[in-house]
C-alpha cells in the first residue's frame, strides 16, 4: 500500500523550542488514523505542519505522491487536504452560511459550490436551523459541526480533525464521531484525528500512533493495541514496555 499521506523525519521548531523531532507517520487511503498523546506532545504541530501553517525545518511531507510545500496553506487546501483545527476557529462574526461558503469559494464554479452547500447542510440539520446566526453565537458542539462542515466544503479527500472532543460534553462527542464515521462511509474520506485520550479512539480508529516529545513512540492497529497497556506505557514514557508493542516507526525515546 502506498500511503496517501506520508511524513518522514519531520522536524519543526518554534524559535529554540523543538516541537517535532524527526516525526514519521503514514495514512492510507480510506483509513481512520489517530494520533494520541499528552498535551504539548506535538499533535497540533504535526497537523499544522501538514496543512502548511508552520515552517518545516527538515523532513518530507507527501500527499498523494506530491511533496507538500511548507507555509503555503492555501495551496495545500487546494490539493484536497483540509484541517479542522483545535478550538474550531469558526469565523464568529460571519453567519453559519458564510462560514460554509468560505470553504466553497475555491471550487471551480458557483453551481458546484451551491450543490456542496446543500449536501453539507444535509449532514448537519442543526446548522440548517441556525443558518443566518453569527457563528460566534453557536454552542461548542454546533461550532464543531460547523468547523467540520466548512472543511467538507473545500472538497477534501483527507480531513485532519484536531481534538474534536475538546471542551464538549460526552454525548456531543459521540455525535461528532458518528458524523465523522458517516462521512467516511458516504464521502469516502480519509481521516487523521488527534485526541488526548485513547478509550473512544480504540473503538473506531483503524490505526493508532502514540506521540510524545515530538516523536512517535508507538504505532499499531487498533486491534493490536486493544488492551491499552502498551498505549499507556508509550503515552507516559515507561521505556520498558514500549519495545514489546507494535513496531515503532519513529525513534523511541
Amino acid at each position, binding site marked *: 500500500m502506498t500511503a496517501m499521506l506520508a511524513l518522514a523525519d519531520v522536524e519543526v521548531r518554534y524559535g529554540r523550542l523543538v516541537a517535532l523531532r524527526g516525526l514519521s507517520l503514514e495514512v492510507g487511503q480510506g483509513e481512520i488514523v489517530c494520533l494520541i498523546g499528552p498535551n504539548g506532545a506535538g499533535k497540533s504541530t504535526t497537523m499544522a505542519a501538514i496543512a502548511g501553517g508552520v515552517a518545516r525545518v527538515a523532513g518530507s511531507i507527501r500527499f498523494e505522491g506530491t511533496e507538500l510545500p511548507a507555509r503555503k*496553506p492555501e495551496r495545500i487546501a487546494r490539493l484536497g487536504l483540509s484541517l479542522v483545527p483545535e478550538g474550531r476557529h469558526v469565523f464568529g462574526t460571519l453567519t453559519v452560511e*458564510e*462560514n460554509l461558503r468560505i470553504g466553497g469559494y475555491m471550487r471551480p464554479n458557483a453551481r458546484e459550490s451551491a450543490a456542496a452547500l446543500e449536501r453539507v447542510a444535509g449532514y448537519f440539520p442543526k446548522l440548517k436551523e441556525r443558518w443566518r446566526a453569527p457563528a460566534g453565537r453557536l454552542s461548542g458542539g454546533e461550532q464543531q459541526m460547523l468547523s467540520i462542515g466548512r472543511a467538507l466544503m473545500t472538497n477534501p479527500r483527507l480531513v485532519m480533525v484536531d481534538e474534536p472532543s475538546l471542551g464538549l460534553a460526552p454525548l456531543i462527542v459521540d455525535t461528532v464521531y458518528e458524523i465523522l464515521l458517516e462521512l467516511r462511509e458516504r464521502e469516502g474520506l480519509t481521516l487523521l484525528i488527534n485526541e488526548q485520550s485513547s478509550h473512544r479512539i480504540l473503538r473506531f480508529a483503524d490505526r493508532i500512533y502514540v506521540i510524545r516529545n515530538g516523536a512517535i513512540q508507538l504505532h499499531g492497529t487498533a486491534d493490536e493495541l486493544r488492551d491499552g497497556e502498551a498505549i499507556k506505557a508509550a503515552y507516559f514514557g515507561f521505556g520498558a514496555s514500549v519495545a514489546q508493542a507494535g513496531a515503532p516507526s519513529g525513534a523511541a525515546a
Partner: protein
Amino acid sequence: MINFLQNVIDALSLGSLYALVALGIGLLFGILRLVNFAHGDFITIGAYSLILPSTNVVATMVIGSWHWAVLIPVVCAIVVVVAMATDVFVFRPLRRSSAPTLMIASFAVSYMIQNGVLMMYGARPKAVNLWSALTTQVTIGGLREPVLQIVTIGTTIGLMLVMSLFLKHARWGVQMRAAAEDFLMAQYLGVRGNFVIGLAFAVSGILAAAVSLLFLAQTGALSNVMGVPLALFAFVAVVVGGMGSLPGAVVGGFLVGIVTTMLQAYLPPDLRVFRDAFTFTFVIVVLLVRPAGLIPSRSIAERV
C-alpha cells in the same frame, strides 16, 4: 438655529472625510494588523497626480483639467497602483513580522512618499483650482451651504454603502471579512492570503483617492504633507471607534469631525487655538470610559 445647522453640516462634511480615511486605515488594520500611517500620503499622491510634475511655483493641471468622469477613475487607478505596489514591495516581504515592525515600515513608506513628492514637485505648497463650480452655495430654507459639503457627505454615504454591500455579499468581501477575523484559518480553507491583502490595499487606495479629490476641492492647496494631519486624526478616530471594527472607524471618524468642528465654532475665541488639545482630551475621556473603543471588534476581543 440656522447657524447651528450650518455648523452641523460642516461637522458632518469634515466627519465624512475623517470617516473615509479611518475606513481605509481600519480595513488594513483588520486584515493585516497594520497601522498604515502612509495612508495619508496615498491621499497626497492622489492630489498631486492631478498636476504636471515640475518644481514650478504655478501648478499646471493635466489630469486635473479632464472631465470628472475620466478624472475620478484615473486618480483612483493611480492611487490603487501606488497602494498595491506598497504592499508588494514593502509589506509582503514583512508578512510574518510583528505589528510594530509593520507600523514602522509604514512610517518609512510615508517619509519616502513625502520626500519623493518634494523632489518631483518642489517644497512650496501650490494652489490648485479643482471643481470650483462646487464651491457655489445653494440655499435650502435659509441654510446657505456650498455644494461641495453636500457632495462630500453624499460621496461618503455612497462609498460606505457600496463597501458594506461588497463586504456583506460579494465572495471577495466575505473572504476579506473571514481573513480579517482569522487569517490563517481562512488560508487553511483555501482563501488566497496575498490576494485578499492586495484587495484590501486596493480598496483603501480607492478610499484615499476619494478623500484626496474631496479634500483638494475644499482646500485648493497642495503640499507634500497634506495627508499627514488627515491620517493622524483618522487614526485617532479608528482608536476611538474600536481598532479592527469598520463601523467603529466610521463612527469614530464622524465623531472626531463633529467634535473638532463644534469646538471650532463654540469655544471662546481665546481658546480656539487650543482646539486640538480639547479634541484629544475628549478622545482620552472616551478611551477611559471605553478602553476598547466605542464599537469594539468582536474578533479582537475574543483573542484577548
